[in-house]
């Protein structure tokens, strides 16, 4: 056995496609390991569940940040500036009577060709009774000052400047999102690049009242993979999808091929009624529609990926593969060394496990590798049907979200293409290695 494997490894070097496939598999594997280490299991679940407050500061439906690598494209990235950061200025003057004036200046650079998606201020105020009062002024690079609003704020107030439609009259009739960033009188609106500044002039009316504020100018681009309709960074799902896809497919492939082989061996060895029963069960199983049954279980019982895995393995035990293995085992059973084993008094189980199965095991290797992509895609198929695991982020669930939000119709191609790319790369990687192994282990195919 080890010799056979060594020989196979030697031989696989002759197949460039297999080498390429192995490289793909290895890089996927490292991505999987990295993801699990970088984002622990529980964090991945919390992030993807998108609890309140986790994804406030990421843009909705933003494209991946590397869009700007395309020459001539310079779309806004996400910008945030906090009153606690060193760039910001914060002056507190005591006005007596417990009142104080807090002036915060939030500077940021805006050097992009497009307009941002949203502008939001996140206040963090501490007070017991009287709310602080703030007035906001927007400073453009060319020195204009635009009054935005004067109002009192609550503890965790959020001011969505981009939605303040009444600013239009000060902004040449444009929406704040465009008006705040455009060159005056430009038609169509052009971005004024340079150093912007927002001043927050606040009054607090209590002795130990506090006032802090962050500004987030939501970009059109975000992160390595963009974001979805719930502002979640797709990178999280794409990264965590890797270990899930690999583990799921690997376990499904191992579970279904090994059991199938064992059952076939048992059938051949004992023959008679056992063999006949196994054959009949296989025929019934061929007619059982696996995916609809999984769907049924998903709806009626549980959508957990591990329950699905169990069903795949159970339905896979008596798969059509039994017929192929059976044919091989029938030959193996007649081999002289089996008779020798019998002669020295080896038991049934010993003959099965020590003599029959190892003989056919190499045949299993290529099949096993070829099977993996089909299970990776099966997970995606289930997810597209809305039966993805309820907690874990997977590639299929990203595709499902994209499909439900009509990503292709609205031109958000990245949302479909990135998970699709990962799926097809995985599929190709394993298929290429599997095909090469098939030729190595099945001598009849070798010369073709």
């Amino acid at each position: 056995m080890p010799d056979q494997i060594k020989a196979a490894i030697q031989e696989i070097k002759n197949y460039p496609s297999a080498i390429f496939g192995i490289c793909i598999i290895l890089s996927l594997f490292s991505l999987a390991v990295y993801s699990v280490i970088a984002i622990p299991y529980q964090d991945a679940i919390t992030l993807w569940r998108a609890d309140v407050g986790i994804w406030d500061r990421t843009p909705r439906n933003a494209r991946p940040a590397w869009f700007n690598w395309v020459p001539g494209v310079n779309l806004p990235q996400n910008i945030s500036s906090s009153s606690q950061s060193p760039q910001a200025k914060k002056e507190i003057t005591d006005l007596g009577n417990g009142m104080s004036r807090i002036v915060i200046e939030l500077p940021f650079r805006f050097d992009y060709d497009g307009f941002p998606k949203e502008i939001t201020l996140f206040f963090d105020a501490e007070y017991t009774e009287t709310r602080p009062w703030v007035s906001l002024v927007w400073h453009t690079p060319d020195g204009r000052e635009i009054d935005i609003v004067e109002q009192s704020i609550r503890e965790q107030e959020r001011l969505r400047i981009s939605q303040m439609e009444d600013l239009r009259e000060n902004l040449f009739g444009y929406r704040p999102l465009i008006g705040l960033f455009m060159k005056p009188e430009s038609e169509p609106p052009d971005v004024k690049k340079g150093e912007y500044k927002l001043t927050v002039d606040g009054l607090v009316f209590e002795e130990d009242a506090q006032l802090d504020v962050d500004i987030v100018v939501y970009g059109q681009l975000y992160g390595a993979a963009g974001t979805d309709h719930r502002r979640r960074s797709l990178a999280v799902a794409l990264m965590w999808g890797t270990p899930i896809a690999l583990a799921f497919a690997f376990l499904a492939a191992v579970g279904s091929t090994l059991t199938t082989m064992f059952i076939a061996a048992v059938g051949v060895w004992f023959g008679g009624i056992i063999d006949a029963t196994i054959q009949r069960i296989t025929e019934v199983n061929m007619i059982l529609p696996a995916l609809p049954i999984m769907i049924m279980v998903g709806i009626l019982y549980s959508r957990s990926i591990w329950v699905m895995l169990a069903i795949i393995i159970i339905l896979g035990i008596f798969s059509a593969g039994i017929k192929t293995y059976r044919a091989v085992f029938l030959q193996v059973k007649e081999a002289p060394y089996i008779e020798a084993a019998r002669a020295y008094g080896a038991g049934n189980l010993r003959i099965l496990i020590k003599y029959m199965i190892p003989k056919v095991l190499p045949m299993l290797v290529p099949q096993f590798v070829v099977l993996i992509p089909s299970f990776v895609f099966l997970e995606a198929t289930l997810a597209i049907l809305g039966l993805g695991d309820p907690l874990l982020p997977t590639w299929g669930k990203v595709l499902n979200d994209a499909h439900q939000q009509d990503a292709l119709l609205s031109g958000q191609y990245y949302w479909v293409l990135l998970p699709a790319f990962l799926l097809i790369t995985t599929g190709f990687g394993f298929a290429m290695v599997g095909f090469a192994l098939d030729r190595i282990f099945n001598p009849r195919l070798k010369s073709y």
Partner: protein
Amino acid sequence: MFGKDTTDLKANYSFLFMWRHFKKICLYILKRFLILFITVTIGVYLTILVANMGGAVDEIREGQIRESVSMAVARDPEFQELSSDERQGITAQRVELERERLGLDRPFIVRSFMYLRTALTLDLGRAETLRSDSGSARVRNIMLERLLPTLVLFGLADIILFTVAVVAALFLSRRYGSKLDRAVVALAPTSAAPSWFYGIFLMLIFASFLGFLPFGGMVESPPPDTHLQYFLSLARHIILPLSAIILSAVFLAIYSWRTFFLIYSREDYVEMAKAKGLPSFSIDLRYILRPTLPTIVTNFALMLISMWMGAIVLETIFNWPGLGRLLFRAINQYDTPVIIGSVVVYAYLLALTVFLLDIVYSLLDPRIRVGEGTENA
């Protein structure tokens, strides 16, 4: 297609001989039909067992009873005067009676066989929310209405796939090692992805980007008036899903069949035929395709079975009004009767595939005609 087996004797054509063959084939088909029917029954029974482990089937039946009884009680003027408590008491009483009448109080084993009959005849009662286009809520009507579009799409895809793959495989097996051959071998791993996956890309290119072809649906809405226009519209809509199905399977089929043909083309009798100077076309047909056809048909049928599964998502993505999309909608609306009905229909479709395969097999495999057993082939 290649029915005239010239390797057989001329006696093949004598009427008596053919009659005997015909009888044997019919017997074989009948036997297979019975076996498959029993298999489907067992399969559906297992499905019911799985579905009812959490009491889903019971719930469907109870829900139906409760609804109809409470409707009847609410409508009945006799009970209008009573207080709501009393009315509820009467409803509960009647539900109990109805349960007894329908046998829901009997042990599960007995009930499961009752369910088996209703499932096999698709008499699954009324859907919870889904309706057929004609407005019927009966599960059977909804399912039957959806069957035709699925059969049109997949039947057509199967025929094209089989023809293209066999012709291409024969062609490549004669040009072993050529650039085209190597390209097909390199493309074989593309079949790792299911049809819906290619569907997304085709849609992206041809519908979203180029705008040549529609995003989905079976015909334009509203449907065209004349038959010709209807057909043309159908043709325009079927191109993308059809290509997706074919694309997802064709390269693997060509690759594996070509390899198979190559192995067979090394047989001595092929060399012999070559030496005799037969044209390569008839060598392909008579000496390579003929003996390999049963295996290829089996291989093809297994491929079909896996394709049925892909149908669910493909139809959903292309909005094709077939069984797959119905199942998808049933999932989204938690319409359990339709979901269980779909599982049964898919079981029937798989059995039908296997049955058709058996018929083709009986025509192709001379051993069946001559009367040898095929089970241990």
